[in-house]
């Protein structure tokens, strides 16, 4: 991890602001209140680089790419998901996978953002097992595309038997192709049960190294069980459901910053493509060090994602479509 540099501050006696020199072995304390800060804490504070490791850019505008780039985003990863309506044919998924692997990387590169994708049939469209198998048969071809990191976001939605069977078949595809796995855990009242079913299915399958699996959308009642099994945990920053930034910071304070990342999961619904940089602001306000902020918003996602040789924080040169 890069050793952060903390500049001397220009605080006044009223601003209750001090930051000690940070030393990676003996970090003492950094206390400041963002609403009183006048001078940047450090270079990384002024120009923070971050990765949003879960965002559905097909649902977002080009202006969002511009705003994310301005906020310091250098790389995104985009899992295949439900587009808000059910696709009527496997060909619809084929087109979507091409959009994720051909069109979005180009759109992102125009803003200096490296774009990566995950391929699967999401659990909301997996209730028809035969249809799901037809879509799953296309996954191996796409796994070899240069921006694809693995299989995702697979998982459960309403915790049905068919969803679980399709999830297990995805695990088998990932194991056969030695792919990383990105897992969606269910919403709201279904999350606790669904997370347990998912973790048990992974253990029963037993062919994938837990360090190559990220279980996303954890909250206070599911984060511990994910980390205890040696997997990575993702916290999704949503305005109403999942985690707010304040609660995500609470979870970091309680569970540490090992094997945890934050993401916006920005999509067509109520969500915020700038949720990660806003959470960084919350971390600063809550007195967290530049080192911890960099770890959670950059080093951690880079460490997990780099297990796929296809991940890079350097966007390709922009090209014309």
């Amino acid at each position, binding site marked *: 991890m890069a050793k952060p540099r903390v500049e001397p501050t220009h605080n006044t006696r009223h601003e209750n602001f001090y930051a000690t020199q940070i030393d990676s072995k003996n970090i003492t304390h950094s206390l400041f209140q963002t609403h009183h800060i006048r001078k940047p804490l450090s270079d990384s504070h002024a120009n923070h680089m971050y990765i949003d490791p879960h965002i559905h850019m097909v649902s977002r505008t080009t202006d969002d790419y511009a705003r994310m780039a301005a906020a310091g985003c250098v790389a995104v990863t985009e899992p295949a998901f439900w587009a808000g309506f059910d696709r009527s044919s496997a060909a619809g998924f084929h087109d979507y996978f091409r959009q994720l692997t051909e069109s979005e990387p180009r759109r992102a590169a125009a803003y200096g953002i490296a774009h990566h994708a995950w391929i699967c049939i999401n659990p909301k469209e997996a209730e028809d097992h035969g249809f799901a198998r037809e879509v799953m048969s296309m996954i191996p071809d796409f796994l070899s595309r240069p921006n694809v990191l693995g299989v995702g976001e697979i998982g459960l939605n309403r915790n049905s038997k068919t969803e679980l069977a399709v999830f297990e078949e995805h695990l088998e595809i990932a194991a056969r192709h030695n792919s990383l796995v990105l897992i969606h855990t269910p919403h709201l009242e279904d999350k606790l049960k669904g997370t347990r079913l998912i973790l048990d299915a992974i253990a029963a399958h037993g062919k994938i190294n837990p360090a190559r699996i990220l279980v996303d959308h954890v909250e*206070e009642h599911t984060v511990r069980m994910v980390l205890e099994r040696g997997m990575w945990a993702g916290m999704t920053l949503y305005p109403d459901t999942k985690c707010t930034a304040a609660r995500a910071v609470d979870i970091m*304070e309680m569970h540490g910053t090992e094997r945890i990342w934050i993401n916006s999961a920005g999509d067509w619904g109520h969500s915020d493509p700038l949720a990660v940089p806003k959470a960084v602001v919350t971390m600063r306000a809550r007195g967290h060090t530049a080192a911890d902020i960099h770890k959670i918003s950059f080093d951690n996602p880079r460490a997990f994602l780099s297990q796929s040789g296809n991940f890079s924080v350097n966007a390709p040169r922009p090209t014309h479509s």
Partner: protein
Amino acid sequence: MNTPAGKPPLDRTTLIDLGFIDARAKVLDIAAFLDRLDRAPGTDAPTDFRVEAIRAALSIALDASPTRVERILKSWSDPTTEPVSHADGKAARGAHPQHKA
């Protein structure tokens, strides 16, 4: 993290300074939501399990033990353990009808 496990870097008074107005607004919004339901027609209808889930959660929020958020989330969760035979629609509702406080 650079603080002992579970300990925020900021002290209690500073956290109150940072969070009080936001928490105050949210408490008023919950109270207003419950008042609104009381004023609305349809008070003879059976109590909605979602509103009951909120009332039960408020009593957890007011108790003196830690891990309030975790216990509230668990109280709203589906208590069953087996996969269901068919997905019951696409959307979860926020609390389970069999939630327990």
